[in-house]
């Protein structure tokens, strides 16, 4: 037998995908809210490769309302799998069996798997599977998909049914005149439709379901022939045909549930789930709780001295950079001499002092020399000294080259009189002298307690300054920078290993630069953020799995309703926190076409995982002391969605009331460690894979056009202004000038971010490599300082622009596909580009104005744009368009 297809069908959130993953060994995304699966997915049964298992989006009935339900219905009705494995949530038997009775009418071999048996048992309830099987006329198995119990049996049973190809006795769902009418319709359909589906067809004809009748190809004369029967029935029951069917179905199911389900008496009247709901959906507290949870997430990920920052610093400088010490092993055990018995940190502090003494004294000496012998005399004398030394230079071994001295004491007598006053070590952030720390007992205790120590009389806490004379200088000169690898257990970083490895291979400087600065530099910048996105994804996975995210949709509904979207539109936006591509696809759960389009346009404004990297980088470099910047980006994203939604709703394309909001809320449950780890790992893996597949080639390409000119000549580092990248960036830099980063670097980073958003950080690292600064962070900081007088505003503007313009190209392609029409795709892009640009423009221009940067043409433009935006938000609403009515399941 060729491939046997077994379709998994059932209510949303009843565990189809969990079962699918268990049976096929795949890794499809599972979430604790309805509508996670929006597309049919195929996989092969483990150990039986001719059996295809198909995961379908969840449906409540065979009358679909939204796009993802149409996918499932069409498949079941038109393409006909060999067997249906109907998953039923045992903890909600009644509602789930509603679909089961409909599926049975399709006349396909079917097995019912009662899932979540562990929950049922925990509640103390009992389900009589044998009786249920007898009532439904098909085999019933008990499973727990999460624990993998009984799943294999269920699949094998379905396989056996598929091979038998026959269905059992169908249950008698309908009674009285309804059954009579149905039997009559079935009879008249005889020979017109396939025998197996005649029951299903009869019910559809009875319900007057035009779409289904059309698909089944029922002749018009039969319809008019049976119409009298239907009307008679409606009169008798005093209800419309469709409601009659629904009601009788429920009556039948209630009958079955009454006989097969024994409820435990010890069941509490309000469950814990309901109690939590009262709290988190509270009228006033709901929104603060949601924003608080965002703040906690960002605190963990990017707060100064938070776990995310510590891990990121380690990843960037240590693991991927030069190297790192194993924790608590920084004691100098290998070195003799000056740093003997010192901790690495103390050694660094000591060296900083000695280095400050040395350079300050040298500076003072130069000044004294010039004062004595005339302006510029020192430089001349040093040049003469170097020339003389070069002439006398004899290489000791082959390959030795002459190195010019940068400083020489040329006048011994003068040197003895030179004293450098008030030497101090600069604090990295403030540039002020670092405070003195004395060793007296009182001060040490205070420091340990984390208090500031002052006023104990020993000078503690005062600026640490000292004088340096010639003798002290000569001593200070002998200190060499402490080598971290000599302290404790030093693990070399990948960057350092790569450099060393290439040196050993003896490759040229160009190749080394390509590999270390180009390819590795960019990829390392992106990989350095793995700790941040891991924390964000871990937190998201927790909120999703426990069931809170579905409540957020409920909370947001009342806000979204104000601008004519329902809370359902928030589900794609939650998905969008992880990635924009599934977010755009998740919009399929929205019933109305118009609302769906609007949701697609808006959902990518939520900063996704890749954009998180941009936020993390800028928060770390420019906004370290402003903890609220990172969560603010999420809030801005939501604000754009709300305000953009209001503005769109007032345009003629989207006018109309919000669709009614009906959504099932899953029960809260404590997520399993494995489940959360699995979700997080899948997303992080995707992110790291992207670093290899997209960021790596992009960086190699960027390095290439940055180091070559138009004639493909290799350029020296200083000659970067002749490079292709410089020229390309310069051509479009004007576009970014009003935003405060109109340089070729800013342009190159922003444009390359369309490849993948995190590319912005990689490109910035690459183009800033020529700037001064010890680390990439310092270089990028200096890069923005070179843009103008307001580097922080430029940085904020750059971040806002890259977060809120159209998403990366993969998400754009998905948008075009899901919109169904190119014109809507372009509309989305134009809208997103406008929002991103207008936001960055306003923040930069108005920020500059407030900071005292003066009023310019662009300030005026920014204010005009803002006024126009306000008008689009606050103008009176349009009346709904007749043609844009709610579209029902097509």
């Amino acid at each position: 037998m060729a491939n046997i297809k077994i379709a998994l069908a059932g209510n949303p959130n009843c565990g189809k995908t969990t079962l699918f993953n268990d049976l096929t060994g795949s890794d499809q995304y599972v979430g604790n809210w309805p509508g996670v699966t929006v597309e049919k997915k195929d996989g092969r049964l483990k150990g039986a490769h001719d059996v295809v298992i198909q995961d379908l989006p969840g449906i409540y009935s065979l009358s679909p309302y939204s796009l993802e339900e149409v996918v499932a219905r069409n498949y079941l009705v038109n393409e006909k799998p060999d067997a249906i494995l109907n998953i039923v949530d045992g903890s909600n038997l009644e509602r789930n069996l509603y679909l089961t009775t409909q599926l049975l009418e399709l006349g396909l071999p079917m097995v019912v798997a009662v899932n979540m048996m562990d929950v049922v048992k925990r509640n103390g309830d009992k389900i009589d599977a044998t009786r249920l099987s007898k009532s439904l006329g098909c085999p019933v198995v008990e499973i727990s998909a999460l624990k993998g119990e009984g799943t294999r049996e269920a699949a094998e049973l379905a396989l056996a049914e598929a091979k038998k190809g026959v269905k059992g006795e169908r249950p008698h769902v309908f009674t009285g005149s309804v059954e009579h009418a149905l039997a009559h319709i079935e009879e008249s359909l005889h020979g017109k439709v396939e025998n197996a589906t005649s029951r299903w067809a009869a019910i559809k004809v009875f319900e007057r379901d035009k779409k289904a009748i059309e698909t089944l190809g029922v002749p018009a004369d039969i319809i008019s022939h049976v119409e009298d029967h239907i009307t008679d029935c409606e009169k008798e029951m005093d209800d419309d045909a469709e409601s009659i069917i629904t009601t009788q179905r429920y009556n039948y199911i209630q009958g079955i549930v009454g006989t097969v389900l024994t409820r435990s008496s010890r069941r509490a009247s309000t469950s814990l789930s309901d109690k939590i709901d009262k709290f988190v959906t509270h009228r006033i507290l709901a929104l603060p709780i949601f924003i608080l949870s965002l703040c906690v997430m960002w605190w963990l990920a990017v707060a100064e001295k938070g776990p995310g920052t510590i891990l990121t610093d380690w990843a960037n400088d240590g693991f991927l950079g030069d190297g790192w010490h194993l924790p608590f092993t920084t004691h100098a055990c290998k070195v003799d001499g000056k740093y003997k018995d010192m901790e690495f940190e103390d050694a660094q502090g000591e060296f900083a002092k000695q280095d400050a003494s040395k350079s300050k004294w040298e500076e003072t000496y130069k000044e004294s020399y010039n004062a004595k012998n005339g302006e510029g005399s020192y430089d001349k004398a040093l040049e003469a000294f170097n020339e003389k030394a070069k002439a006398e230079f004899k290489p000791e071994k082959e390959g030795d080259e002459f190195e010019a001295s940068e400083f020489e004491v040329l006048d011994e007598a003068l040197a003895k009189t030179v004293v450098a006053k008030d030497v101090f070590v600069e604090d990295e952030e403030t540039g002020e002298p670092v405070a003195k720390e004395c060793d007296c007992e009182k001060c040490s205790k205070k420091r340990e307690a984390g208090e500031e120590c002052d006023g104990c009389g020993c000078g503690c806490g005062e600026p640490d300054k000292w004088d340096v004379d010639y003798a002290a200088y000569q001593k200070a000169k002998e200190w060499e920078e402490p080598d971290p690898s000599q302290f404790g257990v030093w693990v070399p970083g990948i960057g350092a290993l790569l450099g060393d490895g290439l040196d050993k291979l003896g490759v040229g400087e160009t190749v080394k630069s390509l590999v270390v600065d180009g390819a590795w530099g960019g990829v390392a910048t992106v990989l350095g953020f793995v700790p941040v996105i891991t924390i964000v994804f871990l937190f998201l996975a927790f909120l999703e799995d426990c069931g809170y995210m579905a409540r957020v949709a409920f909370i947001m509904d009342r806000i979204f309703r104000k601008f004519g979207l329902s809370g359902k539109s928030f589900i794609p936006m939650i998905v969008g926190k992880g990635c924009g591509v599934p977010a755009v696809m998740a919009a399929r759960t929205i019933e109305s076409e118009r609302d769906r389009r609007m949701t697609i346009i808006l959902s990518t404004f939520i900063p996704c995982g890749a954009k998180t990297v941009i936020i993390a980088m800028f928060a770390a470099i420019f906004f370290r002391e402003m903890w609220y910047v990172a969560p603010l980006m999420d809030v801005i994203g939501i604000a754009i969605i709300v305000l953009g939604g209001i503005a769109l709703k007032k345009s003629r394309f989207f006018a109309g009331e919000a669709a009614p909001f009906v959504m099932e809320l899953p029960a809260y449950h404590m997520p399993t460690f494995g489940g959360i780890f699995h979700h997080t790992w899948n997303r992080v893996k995707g992110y790291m894979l992207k670093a290899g597949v997209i960021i790596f080639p992009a960086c190699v390409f960027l390095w290439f056009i940055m180091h070559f000119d138009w004639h493909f000549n290799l350029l020296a580092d200083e000659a970067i202004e002749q490079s292709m990248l410089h020229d390309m960036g310069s051509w479009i830099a004007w576009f970014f000038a009003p935003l405060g980063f109109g340089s070729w670097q800013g342009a190159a980073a922003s444009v390359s971010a369309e490849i993948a958003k995190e590319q912005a950080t990689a490109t910035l690292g690459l183009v800033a490599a020529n700037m001064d600064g010890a680390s990439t962070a310092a270089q990028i900081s200096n890069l923005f300082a070179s843009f103008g007088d307001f580097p922080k505003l430029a940085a904020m503007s750059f971040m806002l622009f890259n977060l809120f313009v159209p998403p990366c190209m993969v998400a754009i392609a998905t948008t075009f596909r899901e919109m169904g029409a190119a014109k809507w795709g372009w509309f989305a892009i134009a809208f997103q580009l406008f929002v991103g640009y207008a936001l960055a423009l306003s923040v930069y221009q108005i920020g500059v104005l407030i900071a005292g940067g003066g009023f310019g043409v662009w300030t005026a433009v920014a204010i005009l744009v803002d006024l126009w935006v306000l008008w689009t938000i606050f103008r009176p609403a349009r009346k709904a368009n007749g043609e844009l009515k709610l579209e029902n399941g097509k």
Partner: protein
Amino acid sequence: MPIALMSIGSRHRVKAVKGNDVARKRLATMGFVEGAEVTVIAHSAGNYILGVCDSRVAVDEALAMRILV
């Protein structure tokens, strides 16, 4: 009386669901049919969480006004 006007924690039997549109059919498939038992779990500024069958369903106020008990 519409279920929207009932107090939290109270339990009712559905008499009818008003209207005849997609939303009504949707409610029916979720279990809101004549005779079904519905509990008011929570309401928050116009939105309601209702317990029906063994599940929790969130509905907006307009819909909650249409479910008569």
